[in-house]
């Protein structure tokens, strides 16, 4: 179990509002190293906002967000960029790959931003793609890859800099059932080798297969929390 492990993500009374609309209302949450947490809830409950705050893509209106010991509220834009580069990896529902780059270069890009040489970045990217079972498609461009393959490339890119936490926003939401299964297996594998995961999903099956804990959100508040034993 993860109870004694270090806290990787800590949210303390976090509020986020957009004008009059309150997206998060006093959310407190801890995620420990090696945990896989699924955040669930109806549309508009604040799931993606929560993910964006943890990823440093957005800033809380009040409260504290600390990831891997770093208080995101105290960082400027450049600091947040460096934080994202080193500490988190993100997977999106619609993959968000760059169409002009091959799968290999999309993955290598994340490492190149940290100053890794092109050759080194490509070697590691190829290893990752190999581990994810799509090394044969490394030279292909996103337009010719299937949805599942694109999401695998996105996962490889997210893992490129060995993030402290992997954040996934509806990772199977745009996939057919077969591709969805493949991605679920992939996330499960990652969790099992100790990767800290935070999933935002509507998909009960995904949560049950991949997460060790489920956090329920409604109207910007945590309404329930439960631990799942099946996945571990």
């Amino acid at each position, binding site marked *: 179990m993860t109870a004694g492990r270090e806290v990787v993500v800590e949210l303390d009374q976090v509020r986020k509002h957009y004008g009059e609309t309150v997206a998060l209302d006093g959310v407190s949450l801890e995620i420990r190293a090696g945990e896989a947490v699924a955040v669930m809830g109806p549309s508009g409950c604040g799931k993606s906002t929560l993910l964006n705050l943890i990823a440093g893509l957005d800033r809380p209106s009040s409260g504290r967000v600390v990831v891997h010991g770093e208080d995101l509220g105290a960082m400027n834009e450049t600091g947040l960029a460096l934080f994202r580069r080193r500490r988190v990896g*993100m997977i999106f529902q619609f993959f968000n790959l760059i169409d002009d780059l091959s799968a290999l270069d999309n993955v290598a890009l994340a490492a190149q931003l940290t100053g890794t040489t092109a050759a080194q970045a490509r070697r590691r990217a190829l290893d990752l793609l190999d581990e994810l079972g799509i090394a044969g498609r490394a030279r292909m461009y996103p337009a010719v890859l299937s949805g599942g393959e694109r999401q695998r490339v996105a996962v490889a890119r997210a893992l490129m800099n060995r993030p402290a936490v992997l954040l996934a926003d509806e990772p199977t939401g745009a996939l057919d059932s077969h591709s969805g299964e493949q991605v679920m297996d992939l996330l499960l594998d990652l969790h099992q080798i100790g990767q800290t995961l935070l999933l935002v999903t509507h998909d009960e099956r995904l949560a049950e297969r991949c997460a060790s804990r489920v956090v329920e959100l409604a109207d910007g508040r945590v309404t329930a929390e439960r631990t799942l034993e099946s996945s571990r």
Partner: protein
Amino acid sequence: MSAVWGIALAAVRRRRLQSAILAVVVLCSTVAIVVALGLLEASSGPFDRTFAAQRGPHVVATFDRAAVSDALLAETARRPGVEAAAGPYGQSVVTVADTRQSLPPGPLTVVGRPGPGGPVDRVELWAGRWAERPGEIVVNRPVDPVFGDLVGAAVQTVEGLRFTVVGLASSVTRTAEAWVAPAQMEAMKPASAQMLYRFVAAETAAEVRAATAAVTAGLPPSGVLGTQSYLTVKRDVSRAAEAYLPFLAGFGLLGLLVAVLIVANVISGAVVAGQRQIGVLKSLGFTPDQVMAGFLMMVLLPAFAGCLAGTVLGALVSQKLLDLVFAGIGAAIGLGIGWPVYVAALLGVPAVVVLAALVPASRAHRLPAAETIRAGSAPRPGRGQAVQRLLSGSRLPRPVSLGLGLPFARPGRSAMTLAAIVLGVAAVTLATGLFQTMTAYGDTAQRVGRVHSIVHVGRPGQVRPTLDDAAIEALLRSRPGVRHVTANAWIDVRLPGLTSRSMAQFLRGDAASRGDVVVAGRYVAGPGEVAAPSAFMRRFGLRVGDRLTLALGGARTQATIVGEVMDAADDLIIASWSTLTALDPAGRATQYEVGLAPGTDVERFNAAVKAAEPGLYPRAKSQADQHSVAVIGAAALFTVLLGTVATLGVFNTVVLTTRERRRDLAMLKSIGMTPRQVTLMTVTSMALLGVVGGLAGLPIGVASHRVVVLAMLDAAGLGAPAMLLDVWRVAALAALLVAGVAIAVLGAFLPARRAARLTIAGALRTE
């Protein structure tokens, strides 16, 4: 309000930045077009306009009164082919005495006329009044305040006549050098009479010859002393303006080309960027025609606003430039830009906008709705991928290599942007070169840095100097800070066999230090030597080494042309003082050109000279040539306009590219690209186009400069001195190359910063 109108207005409101860019681009382009067309139109016909306004005579005929009676001459006005005629007016040639008074000494053709108006040759009386009584004279001078102090001056002739100048008038066909009242003329017992004719058909030299033959038919052959066609005068008068015609034409064409390209680029971008919305509208039930109409309206609203404002601004700027360029030729009759220019701008520019919008809009018109939506949401794959693959393996920082690959993802738009930069750099290069050339020409013409003070000798009516010629020169040389002194005597001489009248500038002292540019041969160095401007040499078909005879009064002397100098005058020769001595041993200097050492205060020098000899009238030498100032002003204006338009074109491209790549940029930020790296990447993408554009635009600009300057020099009869052509320096060329990058980077920087500040979460949800 119709649905189409509604979506057009909504689109303009929603795309405020793009609408503003479009409006400003169209505004600048319209100003450039109006100025270019206006100057082209005006420069192609300043003489024609003035000639038409003055109802100038197609032929000025001079008759011998002893052979042809006035009654017979009056009868010629009614002959077939004559539209209107004036005269006969008595005509007499007097010789202005060398009294250092108002007019230069020498022959003066005087005509007796009752007034400046009439059916033909309505001369512009621009100062004073017409001669009404004996002893009054009106002098023909171009409209220029510099001649203003002639009114009231006295004129004395060798024949013993005395006149007072009561007015100044301008006759574009130079029907006389001065006019007196008819009664005065009768008292002068004129030997000849002048008739002024306007013909029904006088477009060509042949028509003028035929019409002239018709009016002189039947008259005693000895009675016709001479005829002068307006076509000859036109060639002469238009020469100054024609010098600037190639420049104006070059810039005008460049301006039109750049403006049309940028407008097309901006419009295409606007429509391409709106393709997704086109698809959405179609899915809602809008017909393809309605969608297209909406989009055309969307671009036409800001474009027409820019066009209107540009036309007004262009009109104001053009008029100011016209006044400068054609000062003295047509200002008095209100030489302005014709309405066709405004109509062309008001109809032509929106037409270009519509044409530019039609191509991409019609493509969207044809596309199925679903495909249009897809086309608008993501770039088509397969573009620029090989380049990106190559760059991703390079050692360049990743934001730089990514930025370098971006232009290849949108080759069409990149090509348009590149074309805009190439033209922008070429325009800036051409303008810079012309600036250098005109400055070099102006500095030479004005003897900038060589002559700092011109000391005039007091004329009758002013305080006369007590010192003689040599003592004045010694006085000037004795002042502290004086480096060189050149004594000048401007005298009208005759050149038998060539012309009855030419201005001769006789020089004494440090003539070589005046800075005259010798195009061929060498400068005047000794007795019996003259130098002549290229225009003079061409006018009379002379070469270096040819001999001239100079005549003044009854004296004659021979001189050899030893050099050809750069000067636009075709009625001037430069000669040594000893040549003047041979013609007039008593000849005196009328002015002195003084060059001062650096740091010497010109005003203090002038005050000291005036205090030492009250009969001297020193003034600081003007450091600017009016025509050069006008051309440099026009070049600067065009450069600013074209530079602005080129920069906005790039700006627009980057804004659109950035908008299309919002998702990519947000993704790059989500994996750790810093705002500075996003800015660097976006700016790099445009800097690449800037470098390529600079490398291509530079030689085009340099070549255009050579063509334009050679044409200008040819039109002005200036020869082709290397100093006006070889104006390029390595540092200047490097700076011009940087201009291409600067245009691109300047245009890219703001939208790049905006891209760097994108809200990642919002952008990534947009799919």
